[in-house]
């Protein structure tokens, strides 16, 4: 069972296998499927992410009208070279927003771990592949890393905003992307789990306060912070920086913070940004 990042990393070391390999083997025994069947399914996930990114339509707007067109704005700004964070981080931001917008506009996406956070993992993965030209095989291995991290978080804590706030959704997605990114950069199991831990730490306490209860504001833009945070914490791990708090304990802290959150800050659309005068006005106009 995948319920401890620390134990998984230790077992990888003991058995001399990669983190992704352990997650894959776990899936094979858990669902009684062949290696090929599992890999094929993961390939379908990655290709669907790619297609969703490539088929972004800047003209689409969500039913409420709040979401649409921002991904195209970032693309143009990137083209003009006006972004302080530079072209590649700009690319990560662009992809994160595009996927979040596509989701809000009822396009096909891959929930990872949820639909609201679906932009984080693909933004990091697709941008990494564009930059370093990894093979698809390598990308799938990294997706197993992400899936393993997400599975541990789901086991020890939660991955739904209604259960633990946005930290459970964007926070988990960011931890998943960070671990995958650290693997792509050559990190071992220890680097992977510390990248994930640092990513999650940075987003602890993030509340789920969607305006009018919709997966739009602030969800789409939070995909950006989840994705960029994943890149920076993967970089920290590659540089040798480690989380002082052990990764499993960080996840447990996320759980206890989530349990302390009042229900008004857990997807009900009753607190935070949803409860601002403007948030209330938007919500009223939609009824």
């Amino acid at each position, binding site marked *: 069972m995948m319920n401890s990042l620390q134990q998984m990393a230790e077992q990888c070391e003991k058995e001399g296998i990669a983190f992704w390999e352990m997650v894959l083997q776990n*899936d094979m025994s858990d669902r009684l499927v062949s290696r090929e069947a599992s890999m094929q399914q993961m390939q379908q996930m990655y290709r669907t992410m790619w297609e969703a990114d490539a088929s972004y339509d800047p003209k689409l707007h969500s039913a409420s009208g709040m979401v649409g067109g921002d991904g195209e704005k970032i693309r143009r700004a990137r083209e003009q070279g006006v972004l302080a964070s530079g072209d590649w981080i700009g690319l990560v931001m662009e992809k994160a927003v595009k996927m979040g917008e596509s989701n809000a506009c*009822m396009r096909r996406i891959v929930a*990872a771990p949820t639909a609201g956070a679906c932009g984080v993992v693909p933004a990091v993965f697709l941008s990494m592949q564009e930059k370093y030209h990894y093979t698809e095989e390598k990308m799938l291995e990294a997706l197993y890393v992400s899936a*393993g991290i997400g*599975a541990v978080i789901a086991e020890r804590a939660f991955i739904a905003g209604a259960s633990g706030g946005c930290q459970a959704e964007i926070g988990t997605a960011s931890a998943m992307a960070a671990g995958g990114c650290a693997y792509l950069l050559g990190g071992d199991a220890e680097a992977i789990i510390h990248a994930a831990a640092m990513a999650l730490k940075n987003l602890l306490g993030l509340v789920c306060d969607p305006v009018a209860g919709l*997966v*739009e504001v602030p969800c789409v833009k939070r995909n950006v912070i989840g994705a960029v945070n994943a890149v920076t914490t993967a970089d920290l791990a590659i540089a040798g920086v480690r989380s002082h708090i052990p990764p499993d304990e960080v996840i447990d802290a996320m759980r206890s913070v989530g349990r302390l959150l009042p229900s008004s800050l857990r997807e009900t659309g009753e607190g935070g940004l949803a409860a601002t005068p403007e948030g209330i006005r938007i919500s009223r106009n*939609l009824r």
Partner: protein
Amino acid sequence: MNIFDIVGPIMVGPSSSHTAGAVRIGYITRRLLGEPVIRAEIGLCGSFLATGKGHGTDKALVAGLLGLAVDDMRIPESFEMAKKQGLSFRFTAEEIPEAHPNTAHLKVEGASGQKLDIVAASVGGGRMKVCSIDGITAEFYGECPTLVVQDRDEPGQVADMTTMLAQANINIATMQLYRDVRGGVAVTVIECDQEVPRESLHWLAERDGILKVTYLSMEEAPV
């Protein structure tokens, strides 16, 4: 939960519980009816009612009733599809005490006049749970072959069902019994490890005291 619940599912947005779960509710209802739906009255409760429109819950439920899967790109156009395929529907606001916040109450009628009344909830991550059938409690998730039998609450009915399954060499995964009142209508929900053959279902439906046999197959349904 497996790793493809973490990286996945592939779905049409924006919300796994308000959109994907709603498609599943419509889809399982359509499969339980066993024929194309021509009329549907859909009651929305709780959060489905409050935020359903913005999440496309209404379109998702209708898409499911048409037999579309959660990743079908035609979900946003389901209302137009329904019109073309002869499915008329209407939505109502409904209050069901103690119900899960994401609950729908569907009253559907099929092409041959068959009727079905389902209350189902979207329970997160795109999963759904049937809560009642034809007004009687019956809980199942629609993730394995499921046999739902309504019968007169009399001795021996369950024996008929299990005999039928044993003869078809089908293993029972879970089994639940419900009834409205003593000696009234009982509902038996049997989740199976294998598909139940059509002939066995016919045999069961003909037995004395069996009022209605509804079966959910996991095999691909024609859309």
